[in-house]
């Protein structure tokens, strides 16, 4: 059995919002999420914008404080680690952000950006050693020859090159776990695939475990071992990547995968199985979060929150319709109506 590197138990992250002088409410960004990531795995969290996936990633790194629940890193609760060991923890967990234009300091050149973590953690003693480490890292991320890039500032680099610098800065401390939040979504297809390729190479070389956050289901399917589908701060479905995508069980995952444009599909009509629109996250719907949008919803969905139940080995779904074995017909009737109309 592989080792668990990160475990999340019943995690809740709520953000307070002030609406008036005395009124205050909470946005339930992450609302009771549990899962474990195994060493060497690529674990993807997919979901629409506002589903809480970025907050989840930040919470795992300890960048936002959860209101409830625990995050364990190698069996240690990250919020009860003694202060003097927090730095070691930070060294092992790093993050790569979505926006290579905003995540780099515009006033720091490439060398300073990458050497900064080494200095903070006091891992280099001399300038010569620092230079050697940084140059080596630049080579690793495909920015070679390193001396051509070391003195450059972010505005002199292309989007792909900036993302390479961000990866170098994340990897310089030799982390074993990286949260990558949409690292390619702002890049062009060909550049994005180069960055992914680099991340996969480095994963093999340094034995890195990734938590990959993305809205792109095709991408998640292609690179990850397991996928968790998030909606409104909850995990709706979790399991092996191709299981979740090709054998989706939850109405939400089914609707998401149906709406993805495909290049080689004969049928160019994209079925819209669920209405769009996220509920108000300050007062999420009771019961199943999806019920206001779900054509399968019955009374129990409005009252009782579905638990994640294993439907196949390692494949869990939180949906009353799946566990109770209801007919999924209502989900597809919308398309039939449409086909009749178009004829």
């Amino acid at each position, binding site marked *: 059995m592989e080792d668990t590197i990160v475990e999340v138990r019943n995690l809740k992250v709520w953000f307070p919002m002030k609406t008036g002088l005395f009124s205050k409410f909470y946005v339930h960004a992450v609302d009771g999420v549990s899962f474990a990531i195994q060493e060497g795995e690529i674990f993807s969290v997919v979901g629409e*914008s506002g589903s809480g996936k970025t907050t989840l990633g930040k919470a795992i790194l300890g960048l936002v404080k959860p209101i409830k629940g625990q995050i364990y890193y190698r069996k240690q609760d990250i919020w009860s680690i003694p202060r003097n060991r927090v730095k070691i923890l930070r060294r092992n967990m790093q993050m790569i952000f979505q926006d290579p234009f905003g995540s780099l300091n515009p006033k720091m050149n490439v060398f300073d950006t990458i050497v900064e973590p080494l200095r903070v953690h006091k891992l280099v003693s001399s300038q010569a050693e620092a230079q050697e480490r940084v140059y080596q890292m630049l080579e690793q991320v495909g920015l070679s020859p390193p001396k051509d890039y070391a003195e450059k500032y972010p505005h002199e680099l292309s989007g792909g090159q900036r993302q390479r610098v961000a990866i170098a800065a994340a990897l310089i401390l030799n982390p074993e776990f990286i949260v990558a939040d949409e690292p390619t979504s702002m890049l062009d297809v*060909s550049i994005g*695939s180069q960055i992914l*390729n680099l991340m996969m190479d480095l994963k093999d070389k340094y034995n890195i475990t990734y938590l990959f956050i993305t809205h*792109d289901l095709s991408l998640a399917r*292609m690179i990850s071992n397991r996928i968790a589908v998030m909606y409104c701060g909850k995990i709706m479905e979790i399991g092996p990547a191709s299981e979740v995508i090709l054998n989706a069980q939850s109405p939400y995952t089914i609707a*998401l995968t149906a*709406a993805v*444009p495909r*290049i080689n599909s004969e049928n160019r009509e994209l079925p819209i199985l669920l209405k769009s629109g996220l509920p108000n996250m300050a007062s999420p719907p009771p019961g199943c979060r999806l019920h206001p949008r779900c054509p399968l919803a019955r009374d129990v969905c409005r009252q009782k929150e579905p638990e994640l139940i294993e439907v196949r080995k390692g494949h869990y779904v939180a949906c009353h319709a799946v566990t109770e074995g209801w007919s999924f017909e209502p989900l597809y009737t919308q398309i039939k109506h449409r086909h009749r109309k178009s004829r």
Partner: protein
Amino acid sequence: MSFMTLLKVSNLKVVYYTRKGIVKAVNDLNFEIKSSEVFGLAGESGCGKSTVALSILRILPPNARVLDGSIFFQGRNLLDVPEDEMRHIRWNKISLVFQGAMNAFNPVQTVGNQIIEAIMLHKKDIDKREAWHIAENLFTKVKLDPSFLRRYPHEFSGGMKQRAMIAMALACNPNLIIADEPTTGLDVIVQAEILRLLKDLKNEYDLSILIISHDIPMLATLCDRLAIMYAGELVEYADVRTLCTKPLHPYTRGLLRTLPTLDGDWQFTGEILKGEPPSLIDPPPGCTFHPRCPISKELCKRKKPLLTEIEPEHYVACHSVIE
């Protein structure tokens, strides 16, 4: 479907004068859009695809110049039309759905006011009440509640703003809508709704649509024909099925193979297209794609390949394919 040509772009050449040098954004571009057709223009950022849209509407920034070429629309060259007539053509004949609809609306005015302002500017004989009535009808057409006309842009979600933008583009019954990245930044289900809306409106109003995007799978579900642009030039164009199933240009082939797919059982294969797009200030001689091309030859470094009809209605600009 009739096969009349609605818009014909010939030898279009557009440059930007910048402090760093002359950016050759669009270089010798040729294509035509037939009436009632959805034509897709795909390319990576900085390949000049938005410049094409701006040139058609003649709303290029001041540092840009059209050096050569013609854009014929309904028998007239848009590049020669006097400015006040051009103002009439914009919105009444050709309208634009902007990139990033999120920020296209003025935040301190209701959406309704902004739409009737556009209507009243372009239809002189209409008063405010009639304009409001038109706006209500348009909102119903794009499946938005007409009461939302009285709301402010921040009360709209991304998909709703995009619908409102489309309503505005339809306001003066144009023949051609240019949609620049109409679904970028939207979630998949919202994107599917917007694509369906565009398709329905196209059939209902017998519109032609020029849709510009970097997202090839999205274009593949909407377009009739698709053109691939690279470094200011068209490298390939054909009907969507041919282009997606039998791409011939090495750039198109690389792009399509790099795209992750949802179905199928293949795994991550790694990068296929190496390098980055060239600077348009100093583009490489010969074929602009040759520094990244896996099959480039000596000839490619010297001579620019011409867009050639390889099979009926399938155009490719590549020496290896042409030979």
